[in-house]
């Protein structure tokens, strides 16, 4: 039995026939080739698969592809385009820029999920404390960084974002700004 799903992924409309048991993460990776979203577990614990659905962080391994029907998905590949161009740093989302500056990643496997969880946090809280960040990353495991620089990077991203916004650069940290097309 195949179901038709229609959604927006990184600003582009996507239409697919899919089996009811297909997980969103598999649709993204296998069908759409968006391999930036990773799979690190099979018990919804690691957060490597985190994407934004209608601006909120969700674990795409716990969402069936059919449940994403009619929704707006942003993956790490679309993260930069999800904010106004004037807020970007060299084409990067402030979070991406901050992770590179603050050495918020080592092997990079957890990173896409952490970035998306961070994007959700910043859309709700423009100036998170260290404790806020640690709390928001409760669902994301990283085995490399000890979280030290991840926390620093998310807070730096908040700062970068505020800087650009104060410079009158544009809309607030829109999560689902719809991309460039």
């Amino acid at each position: 039995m195949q179901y038709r799903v229609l959604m927006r992924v990184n600003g582009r409309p996507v239409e697919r026939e899919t089996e009811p048991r297909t997980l969103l993460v598999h649709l993204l990776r296998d069908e759409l080739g968006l391999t930036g979203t990773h799979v690190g577990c099979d018990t919804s614990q690691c957060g490597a698969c985190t994407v934004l659905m209608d601006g909120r962080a969700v674990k795409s391994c716990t969402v069936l592809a059919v449940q994403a029907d009619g929704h707006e998905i942003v993956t790490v590949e679309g993260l930069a385009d999800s904010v106004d161009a004037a807020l970007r740093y060299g084409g990067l989302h402030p979070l991406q820029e901050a992770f590179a500056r603050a050495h918020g990643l080592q092997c990079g496997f957890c990173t896409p999920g952490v970035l998306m969880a961070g994007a959700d946090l910043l859309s709700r809280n423009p100036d998170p404390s260290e404790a806020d960040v640690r709390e928001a990353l409760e669902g994301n495991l990283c085995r490399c960084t000890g979280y030290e620089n991840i926390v620093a990077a998310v807070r730096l991203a908040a700062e970068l974002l505020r800087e650009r916004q104060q410079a009158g650069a544009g809309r607030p940290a829109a999560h689902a700004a719809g991309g460039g097309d």
Partner: protein
Amino acid sequence: MPTLFGTPVRRREDARLIRGEGLYTDDVRLPDMVYAAFVRSTHPSARIRVDASAARALPGVLAVFTADDVAGRVGDVPTAWLVPDSGLRTPPRPVLARDVVRYVGEPIAMVVARTRALAADAASAVNVAYEPLPHVTDARAALAPGAPQVHAGVPGNVLFTWHAGDREATDRAFAEAEVEVSLSIRNQRLVPAAMEPRTAVAAPTPEGGLTLWTTSQNPHIARFVLSGMLSLSEQRLRVVAPDVGGGFGSKIPVYPDEAMVAHAARVLGVPVKWTETRSEAFVATIHGRDQVQDVAMCGRRDGTITGIRVRATANMGAYLSLAAPGVPTILFGLIVPGAYRIGAVDVEVVGVATHTTPTDAYRGAGRPEATFLVERLVDTFARRIGMDAAEVRRRNFVPASAFPYATPTGLVYDSGDYAAAMDRALEAVGYEAMRRRQEDLRREGRYLGIGLSTYVEVCGLGPSKVAGAVGFQGGLWESATVRVHPSGKVAVIIGASPHGQGEETTFAQIVADALGAPFEDVEVVHGDTAATPMGWGTYGSRTTPVGGGAVSLAARRVADKARRLAAHLLEAAEEDVVVTDGRYHVAGAPARSLSFADVALQAHLAWRLPDGMEPGLEASAFYDPENFVFPFGCHACVVEVDRNTGEVRILRYVAVDDCGRIINPMIVDGQVHGGVAQGLGQALWEGAVYDESGQLVTASFLDYALPRARLMPHIETLHTETPSPHNPLGVKGVGETGTIAATPAVVNAVVDALAPLGVEHVDMPMTPERLWRILSRAQGRAPEEVRA
């Protein structure tokens, strides 16, 4: 004149990884690719009969492989660290279980089907009839008379018995000692849990060979071993480790799984992919640690430590994984004396087979187990003689003047100033004030503790002659080619295989400095046996000290040639040519100058080369270090234990690490953070547990507690810099220091906190429940609540 060396250059790796444009093995997708799934034992010990007929008949199933199908076609998985003088037995490990299974998770059959889902369905249709046999998962129990035998060829389950030091001298030291302390330590089993599960994609090539993309820390070793297992000549087997999502030792070994994926691709003639599920990973990928130890230390009342004795039992699991025998022996026993001048050392380790997942190198590999016991003993000794723990350390340190220092276990420590590192940590943590605060809080009935760990570790694994002497079935040198393109762009092609440690950046720093080339123009290439020279891989904190040695030598060769050519083109004497801001010119005459790109172009045009100079601009180096390197430092941890809940709050964590000269401080600190997190994980939360029935009960992230952001404290990183004389860069490794140092620092802090209650040791992980029981017992709560 280094310019980038020592600066926090942004990482080269990040540009692709933060955009989701990395290529991890599971991202490899090939036309006509099919999927493999394994049938794994659900019993720890059983006789098996396998019936795959139903699975074979399912639609979409291309093949089911059992032991019968691979007999004579895929060789056994080898053990490659044959520790000498240990009576080592290496029981055969077939890729698919033959007649009996020996641990939960052991592969029995492999199914290949058109989709991942069909493969999973078909795997559950393979019928395995189990006739359970007695099992044993605990190493001490496996040594008991009458214990179930894991292998017919391993009587008493003893895989090896290894000894280091001088037993008689140590017995004498203990007999003459004024003070003796002892501890029973359980260094619990851990799960490495790299966030990327193991994965393999094998594709046949038109020449009858194979390309294997795999999650490996050492693709050249993988090729070397797999070519043997598959009887496929090396030039026909290309192994690629693309972006690898962490390893921590677990991606060193060659496992049955990857060999089977390669075999299936060869048989079926199409690309085959296998991606481990996390549930599989918990039982199918190696575990680490798992030692029980009886240890003792002796000395005088003035604080002098005179002897240390270790009796350890190491649980090796059901088979000896690739490097496993070397971990609880060479990598453990030789470093037992730690940072201290201890005259008499006696270490004995018995390696034991049990019905559990094989253990092997997990970050630190042997050195955490050694450091933990010596650091716990020093604290226990200090308390017994009523001397401050820092003072006892100071009195026993190998003094800065004593290097190179030969240990009674046969190592030669390269360089160090252990007291300086400790002083740095004591100052940073405010040791004296903290001790006073501890006094005050104790009067209020609160438990503040301060723990120190003054470690030294052995890493930068090499040189090869030592590898040979200790039975390591490989070399431990590294290689690099520095290849300058006609445009002046530079490829640094290395045999090692970093996977998160940042050498794409730090090696580019080294080469840019050496050549006077712009950093942006230098690219590091690694991870593909078809593109890179032979190298032994990334583990044992060796890539920077050993691989960096090769890079540095190759870069110097290229720089020398570039300077000779520049001198010729500038019509100057070679000694007069200097490089300033990336331009080659005669000293004091910067007006006439050449850029590195100019020189590179001329080297390739070869129109005006000096007599006898070969065209091109490229050099290779094979670097075998003179000795290991010995990073050291002091970690200080301040905790408060909640008297009601048993919860440990880390109030301060200060890491002072000396890893020699620092190429990129940002990356070094990142390594320390991650290492400390894993060390804290062992101290406080992590532990792999088998139940009575031989099942791993901690087999998911729900049951196995990895450090989480909310649990981790802020980690303060500081450094002293004592160059290593053993390599051209003066660097030491830093990948494992945090893990080695952190665990005893935290446990020492908690034991120190609970000292007023008479607590002398706490087993790991120090969960709130465990501490609550200890507190309850000590504070005289109702006994039925405190059955610990």
